């Protein structure tokens, strides 16, 4: 058994969003390295030191509590990050670029729900636990692009 094996074992049980999982594992790696070094300094060999460090760490219990503690955090942050550009794009489309050039006609957009559906999917996708920062950035680019298209070609109907 090596530290990498121990980390893999933890990773298999964690099931966190990728970015968070990477940081948690990096933190645990540092902990195990310190513990192994301390045990070796007391005269234990590599394997004994690692076994002792793993036992003191409490892999199973710590992993379960980490999973419980982080449950839903990444997802909620992802949804919140996605909601901002999506809301801007919808507000822009519904109020500024309403059919006929008037805000009064915004209700007509209810009969053309494509963008609304895309927006709903975009907000829901973080539930699939994509890396939230990259996903939010991609959404900003996509929805600002859509807003620009709507601004430049207001006659596009979709």
């Amino acid at each position, binding site marked *: 058994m090596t530290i990498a094996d121990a980390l893999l074992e933890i990773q298999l049980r964690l099931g966190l969003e990728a970015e968070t999982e990477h940081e*948690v594992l990096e933190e645990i790696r540092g902990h195990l390295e*310190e513990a192994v070094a301390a045990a070796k300094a007391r005269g234990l060999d590599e394997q004994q030191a690692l076994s002792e460090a793993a036992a*003191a760490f409490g892999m199973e219990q710590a992993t379960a509590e980490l999973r419980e503690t982080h449950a839903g955090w990444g997802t909620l942050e992802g949804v919140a990050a996605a909601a901002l550009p999506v809301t801007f794009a919808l507000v822009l489309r519904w109020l500024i670029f309403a059919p006929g050039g008037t805000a009064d006609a915004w209700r007509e957009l209810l009969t053309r729900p494509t963008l609304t559906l895309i927006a709903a999917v975009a907000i829901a996708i973080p539930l699939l636990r994509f890396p939230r920062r990259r996903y939010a950035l991609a959404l900003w680019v996509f929805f600002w692009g859509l807003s620009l298209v709507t601004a430049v070609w207001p006659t596009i109907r979709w």
Partner: protein
Amino acid sequence: MDKMDQMRKGTTTLAILKLLIDAGEPMHGYQIARALEGRSQGSFQFKEGLIYPRLHQMEHDGLLRSEWEGERGSRRRKVYLPTADGKERLAEELKQWQSFILSMEHMLGLTG
């Protein structure tokens, strides 16, 4: 959850905040776990890994903030520092703790 688990969860936040404020410098998880074990003189033992869910929850609650020491791609260490809210929480909890101990001593007839 057994009684020891409940007690650990309830008191670890207080112990971590006190330790970090007393230390006056950022500490990483391993240092915190070892220092807590040292302070309790072995009377309060828990698995070292259980420090991380507590640290992450405290950071999420705004009681601690963390920084990575070292460059990305090399060996890095995540260190923790108390926030202003954390210091405030410690002051409140210490006050409650002292009041609780005093009340218990009175109730048990341990005071002169």
